[in-house]
């Protein structure tokens, strides 16, 4: 299957089952994991990949990921370090992977958006402008997942 734009991307994501949504979310997050130095995020991502995870373990992973996310916000008035901010969005992507189920929410889409913000922050940090290929990378990741 070929995904070439966000409408197709969103549609494909909506057909995934709950467990698969988390697994795809984990893949999206992994793609930007190098932008974060926080080991807790990897923990969250690994948890999301497991099909046999219990609700209690998911809740614990969520707590840990939330802590990582809250600690990495840029505080109001402080100078923004875009690399650190990228790390924050990776944490947010990790949070999305293990967030509690909410009607209407798709962890895969949320994680995808947060991962894109992480990449955007990295792009700003390196001064490469605003374009980045994260969306395209995510289409590939999803297509590979669906084909497997």
């Amino acid at each position, binding site marked *: 299957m070929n995904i070439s734009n966000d409408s197709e991307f969103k549609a494909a994501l909506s057909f995934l089952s709950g467990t698969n949504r988390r697994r795809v979310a984990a893949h999206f997050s992994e793609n930007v994991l190098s932008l974060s130095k926080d080991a807790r995020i990897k923990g969250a991502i690994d948890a999301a990949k497991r099909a046999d995870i219990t609700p209690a373990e998911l809740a614990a992973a969520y707590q840990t990921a939330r802590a990582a996310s809250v600690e990495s916000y840029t505080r109001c008035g402080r100078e923004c370090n875009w690399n650190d*901010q990228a790390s924050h969005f990776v944490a947010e992507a990790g949070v999305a992977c293990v967030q509690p189920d909410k009607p209407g929410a798709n962890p895969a889409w949320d994680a995808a958006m947060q991962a894109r913000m992480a990449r955007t922050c990295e792009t700003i940090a390196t001064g490469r402008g605003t374009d980045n290929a994260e969306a395209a990378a995510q289409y590939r990741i999803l297509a590979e997942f669906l084909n497997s």
Partner: protein
Amino acid sequence: MSASIEKGISVLKEVIDAPIASYFSSCVHCGLCAEACLFYTESGDPKYTPIHKLEPLRRVYKQEYTLLGRFAKILGLSKPVTDEELEEWKPLVYDSCTLCGRCSLVCPVGNDIVYMVRRLREGMAISGHAPEGLAGASQRAVEIGSPMGVKLPAVKAQMKHVQADTGIEIPLDVVGAEYMVLMSSMEIINFPEYLAAIARIMKQAGKTWTLCSEAFEATNSGIQIGVSDIARVLVQRIVDGAEKLKVKTVISPECGHAYTALRWEGPNLIGRPYSFEVLHILEVLDGFRNAGLLKTSGFEEAKLTFHDPCQLVRRGGVLEEPRRLLNLVAKDYVETGDPGKMNWCCGGGGGVSAIEEAEELRLTAFKVKKVQLEATGAKTLVTACANCRIVLEEGLEHYKMDIPVVGLTETIAAHLTAKE
């Protein structure tokens, strides 16, 4: 800018007016202002008493504007205000004051203490006694255009991201649009969902809007540090942008001090009324709701409560709009024990969250919020200020409370009825 105590005292002399003279003459040392200030109530340290924070200003008033005080000064009987004293007062005037204004609300003789703190900061800043974090923020605001160093490319990157997220094009520099939307650096950096929410809501309401490349920043660090010249430059940027784009209304974002700066202090800073209206985003949304332009469906399931941002509600006058909007999407809404204008500050406003040395005190002061929120039994906390949001999240995390914090605009947008 060379700092000096002479400049500081000179500025303090300039800012003293009849209200300040009246306030100092009326204070009876009852200490009730301390009972309203979270920095005192949670730390128990009397030095955080609001009126005490003003001691240097009081002495300047006495020595410069009262007959007996001037007499005493000539005779060498008065205690002058010195560099050492101002340095000693720095943590009182900055670290332990968020300009929340609760003290001004309770003083039995009517003293507007927060107004005086704002004025004292002018003298503190010009004599070189403002915290480094704030000085940096103000400098970045003037030189770069944002206190946190956000430049236009970052804004454009966020626009692109939001376009992908929503499928809606984000307008930039559109002349003649009805609304010019401002954002705070906090939203640009931390909360792209705010812009996404605006895009969705404007589309549904059928309103024209635009961002402005020369004036996208709403936050006014000049107000926080207390340098009116800087505050003026920042407001002027917005005014120039709005007039160039010929917009009817400028929308102040979910940021507390941005609203007080632009809506209430702005015209006085630039010396003339605006040719456009300034509304907080919640006022705009409430207007849409009133006109039937806001169509929502579904309700938030969790028990919700609202944190009234100080600058928006008590100091800004946007008292009822948050509740009318929450009524659209909340089934189980509960007020805190001190709702509306009596709300307790999150502890991070007025520049406090930019001062690293103030973090420990801020987290101590947060206990008042912890108690307040626990008493509501709420499962979700809604607010309408990006800084409050982060400060609240940080405080809740610190006290191991698992209550998610969300923005009101984004909550409304999440419930917009999708077009068929």
